[in-house]
């Protein structure tokens, strides 16, 4: 091919170059194909898993599935009402704890340059983020379920989820706070505004979209946590909004339905998974939209 391009009498050099470049082109093509295969495989995994959840979960869904409580095996019907209520309640309580703490940690690190203390907070948040969630569950069990509360309780689960969420909120908010221009802070300070006013009225409102993103991201990540809830909220077959009693949650409900030996319950496990994935998907979608606003 390259000989044709030169159009002249093919020299020995041209022939050599031709051979090398054909080999190089072949390598290029093979590698690109392999890389494409890896990409397609990754996407295919997502499509396959979601496809199964939708295909097997859809038959379980009807109105009763969302409103009824789980029935004992043998009785027709039954749903995941208590688990849906439980998951939303756990998200609300854990968010109410984790979001202020996470934002405060970020403000502490970024706005108050407290040197070693700030580094300690940051490092601790990173280490907590890296802990296996079951370890957090063991801690909350030993601390709250065994000692302070005395039995399995929704509140213990909410606190376990909050511990998992705080580092996510702190790190994401920290990033957006760093994006707020210094000139804004300086302008406000120059006008005589005290520091707390600068933080609450200037910095946080400027970073609002990012703060919302952080909260939503943490909620999406924690909504599917199962292992810590297994050791803290235990699960409940009945509707309960009492935070000091065992509480149902969607991930726990999936586990209970999945490990039972009944086909009908397996269908319900897929249905519950679909509900959970939809809940998280909606949250993730909100996240995507919030991020787009931030970019604009």
């Amino acid at each position: 091919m390259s000989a044709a391009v030169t159009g002249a009498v093919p020299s020995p050099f041209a022939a050599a170059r031709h051979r090398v470049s054909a080999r190089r082109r072949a390598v290029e093509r093979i590698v690109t194909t392999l890389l494409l295969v890896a990409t397609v495989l990754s996407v295919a995994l997502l499509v396959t898993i979601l496809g199964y959840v939708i295909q097997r979960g859809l038959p379980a869904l009807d109105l009763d599935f969302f409103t009824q409580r789980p029935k004992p095996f043998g009785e027709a019907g039954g749903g995941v009402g208590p688990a849906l209520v439980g998951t939303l309640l756990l998200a609300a309580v854990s968010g109410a704890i984790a979001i202020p703490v996470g934002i405060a940690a970020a403000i502490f690190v970024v706005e108050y340059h407290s040197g070693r203390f700030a580094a300690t907070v940051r490092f601790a948040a990173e280490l907590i983020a890296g802990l296996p969630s079951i370890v957090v569950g063991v801690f909350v069990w030993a601390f709250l379920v065994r000692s302070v509360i005395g039995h399995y309780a929704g509140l213990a689960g909410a606190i376990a989820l909050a511990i998992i969420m705080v580092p996510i909120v702190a790190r994401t908010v920290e990033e957006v706070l760093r994006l707020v221009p210094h000139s804004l802070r300086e302008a406000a300070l120059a006008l005589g505004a005290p520091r707390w006013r600068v933080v609450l009225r200037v910095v946080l409102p400027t970073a609002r979209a990012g703060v919302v993103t952080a909260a939503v991201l943490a909620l999406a990540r924690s909504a599917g946590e199962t292992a810590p809830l297994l050791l803290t909220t235990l699960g409940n077959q009945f509707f309960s909004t009492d935070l000091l009693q065992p509480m149902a949650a969607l991930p726990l409900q999936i586990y209970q339905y999945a490990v039972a030996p009944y086909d009908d319950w397996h269908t319900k496990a897929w249905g519950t998974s679909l509900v959970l994935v939809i809940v998280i998907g909606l949250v993730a979608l909100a996240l995507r939209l919030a991020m787009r606003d931030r970019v604009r």
Partner: protein
Amino acid sequence: MTRATDRAFAAGVAALAMLVPLTLAAIALLIVIDAWPSVTTFGLSYLTTTVWDPVKLVFGAGAYVYGTLVTTTLAVLLAVPVAVGAAIYLTEFAPRRLRGPVSYVIELLAYIPSIVYGLWGFFILVPLMRSQVEPALQATLGRLPVIGRLFSGPPVGLDLLTGGVILAIMILPILLAVTREVLLAVPPTQREAMIGLGATRWEAVSRAVLPYARPGIVGGAVLGVARAFGETMAVTLVVGNSSREISGSLFTPGYTMASAIANQFTEADSDLYFSAIVEIALVLLLVAIAVNTVARLLIRRAMAGRPAGAVV
């Protein structure tokens, strides 16, 4: 007045922020205290012996450690080539318009809850492994002299191999995200110089981009290790949870440290049994701290010179 409010606000922020290191300290302290009876009774043999007998009150977590090591190693070996390959394709080769959306789609895998992976693994992957993949592996790799031993025994599906596969799928998104960030952080001049010298795209990537990004990619892989070894629900559902013996085959049902905690936590009927279970959590805690620290140092070094941000 203003100064008082300012001071109160600063104190409030500091107090809330200090909850973070305090929580970490409380976690470490309480777990050490609860694990202490087991630590002092069994010492180092806890990690190396495999007798786990709640009746005779002898506990060695060796089999759980082994199961965790095997599944985590498999996960990393399977996931790293795919994730790094996809990340390279998506930063260097793919049509520009597709790069962002496709990466986003793959990173959605990270939002699927662990329990849903477990359900999928239990009902779809396990039967597939038992009826197709494992017999095929046995018929091919199983005939080789030394490696063959890894694939011996009846293909049961609920085993270490399946545990490794499900973990590989679960750590794929984090590996991909980190690798992509690290590759994007490589200065464009690295590529341009190679291309200018007449290199093909792959030559530029393999000789000028990957060497530059290597510490970050290794860091991402280490972060994947950190995710994999503490993962609980998905592995618990597919790994078998029955065998307490170590055998060389990947086709043996195993147990990981995290799944041992999940399955036995509520069964602990004696103080020493409970303490032995908490010691598993202690080992997970220590390994998590070590592995995450190493990973973050590596990634930070690879991202140096670039504004803070990124996925980690």
